[in-house]
């Protein structure tokens, strides 16, 4: 039998990893050309980019028309314009000409300072709210979530304080998209939390009410909710008692988003270990404190991706208000296709690309911010 005894004389100190792992060459080797199949895929991807990217850039920027006052700027010789036959490119002149309409719809042009002021206040309140280092978060939140909606309501609608009344049927464009989504977000998060807590409650009536609400709203398409709110509701109301259509859309979008949010939050609540509830109980914390300080912060952190997913979905779903003849950004862009001043073969594509880009910008912003928040709140596994 061999000798099995061994005693270590000294511990090996930690060393830095091999250089090839850290260099650019090492990175390319590992990530792009690690195997035969990887190399083939890398080359195919590069070829695809080389094939599709230059024409796209050409169409969007190089061949695009940037200035002009009507459709002739974006027409070829055959179509009655000045551009060479076979030309195709984006007609940014059309977006530039219709820009105010895309942003504000038919809001009276001499009153545009009102939505612009609301937008400025919104940005001024939102930016410090999103930056963790800025102090006085409580006051900031109060102004943003309660002060701003009240301020915006009086300023945008008018009819008081000597401001001219602007009917909501004149509102449109990005303004409507943002108002609908902002109100939807601000209402759906707290409402969703309450619904989720209600659904997990021990009290049978409250629990049943929450389940019925959530399942009823989730089981119906948003279009149906909006359509019923717009067409059916007035039939049941006395004539003259009509609720504003925009308000109905706001309520429709909000309750719809709340039902979805409730289920996202419930997922988070279920992921919190029982021990957390027990520790809070054992310390004597009451239900409100337990939920507000222990359970919800952890549950919400867990489901940030789901929450933002719902926000993004709702942001895009606001386009469905077109069904009740309200014009959000996409609706107003589509409506402008029929505008005889700008009918050209490239107008629809340009308009849709513009609308898509604006939607993407906001959604990507939300997504990036949520990733930032997730990283920032990640304390649980930090070692």
């Amino acid at each position: 039998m061999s000798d099995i005894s061994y005693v270590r004389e000294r511990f090996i100190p930690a060393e830095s990893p091999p250089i090839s792992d850290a260099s650019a060459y090492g990175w390319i080797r590992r990530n792009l050309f690690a195997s035969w199949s990887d190399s083939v895929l890398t080359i195919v991807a590069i070829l695809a980019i080389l094939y599709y990217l230059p024409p796209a850039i050409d169409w969007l920027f190089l061949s695009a028309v940037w200035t002009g006052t009507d459709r002739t700027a974006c027409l070829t010789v055959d179509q009655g314009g000045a551009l060479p036959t076979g030309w195709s490119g984006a007609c940014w002149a059309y977006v530039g000409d219709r820009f105010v309409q895309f942003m504000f719809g038919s809001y009276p042009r001499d009153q545009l300072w009102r939505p612009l002021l609301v937008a400025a206040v919104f940005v001024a309140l939102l930016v410090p709210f999103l930056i963790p280092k800025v102090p006085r978060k409580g006051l900031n939140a109060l102004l943003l979530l309660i002060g701003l909606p009240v301020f915006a309501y009086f300023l945008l609608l008018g009819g008081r304080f000597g401001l001219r009344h602007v009917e909501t049927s004149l509102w449109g464009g990005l303004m409507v998209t943002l108002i609908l989504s902002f109100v939807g977000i601000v209402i759906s998060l707290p409402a969703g939390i309450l619904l989720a807590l209600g659904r997990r409650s021990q009290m049978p009536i409250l629990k049943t009410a929450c389940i019925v609400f959530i399942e009823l709203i989730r089981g119906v398409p948003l279009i149906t909710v909006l359509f019923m709110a717009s067409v059916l509701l007035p039939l049941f109301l006395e004539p003259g008692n009509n609720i504003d259509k925009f308000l109905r859309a706001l309520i429709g979008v909000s309750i719809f988003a709340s039902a979805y949010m409730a289920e996202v939050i419930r997922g988070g609540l279920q992921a919190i270990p029982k021990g957390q509830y027990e520790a809070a109980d054992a310390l004597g914390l009451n239900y409100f404190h337990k939920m507000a300080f222990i359970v919800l912060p952890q549950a919400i952190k867990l489901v940030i991706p789901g929450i933002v997913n719902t926000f993004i979905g709702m942001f895009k779903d606001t386009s469905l208000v077109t069904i009740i003849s309200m014009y959000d950004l996409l609706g107003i862009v589509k409506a402008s296709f029929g505008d005889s001043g700008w009918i050209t073969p490239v107008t629809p594509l340009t308009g849709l690309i513009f609308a898509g880009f604006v939607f993407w910008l906001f959604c990507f912003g939300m997504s990036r911010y949520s990733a930032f928040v997730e990283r920032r709140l990640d304390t649980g596994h930090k070692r």
Partner: protein
Amino acid sequence: MANLGQPKAMTVSATDVAIDIINMNKWYGDFHVLRDVNLKVMRGERIVVAGPSGSGKSTMIRCINRLEEHQKGQILVDGIELTNDLKKIDEVRREVGMVFQHFNLFPHLTILENCTLAPIWVRKMPKKEAEKVAMHYLERVKIPEQANKYPGQLSGGQQQRVAIARSLCMKPKIMLFDEPTSALDPEMVKEVLDTMVSLAEEGMTMICVTHEMGFARQVANRVIFMDQGQIVEQNDPQSFFDNPQHERTKLFLSQILH
């Protein structure tokens, strides 16, 4: 087993009852977990509860701060009877601290915040004072330098000591320990037991569910052995370990003391 040192003088009140459990019964569905449990704990007394798994020892101490509800019998803690009255439950929980097998620290809060949360919101203590109290107890469990870290950055033993400090910050009259060392690495057990011993030396009323028989021998006034939801035997540690009476106790001790 670690030598825990001989405890200093520990006084047990002869007349002052801290916990009184009278004919308590509990069922999980059809399963009768606790059967006619009777237990009187005097102030300053340190009780170790032992028994095989599933014997109801954890369930029993969890009934004392109403993490579990009993269905028959009476539990009086510090003179307050536990019923469905939420006010009374909160009153009891303010006076009874609990340490869990899996620590149950709040991972999203720093060590200091873990310790100050309940004093601030339950005891309505000003934040500054709560932090002073928290630092005092973190020093007692010998980890004041970790105050601003998160639980995930600490070792198991450190986390359990924080959990003890967190309970102590509420200045409880009674402490319950539910297998506090069972989830720890062997190297960490002693530091937690040492903390518990020093707590015992100060005269804290304690009920510990534990398998640390060395701890029981040196700190407990009384060892209780449970099986099938009932108290089978109780005695002072010396007699309990050296001269067990019930067959079940003898079998249990022969299994764990090797």
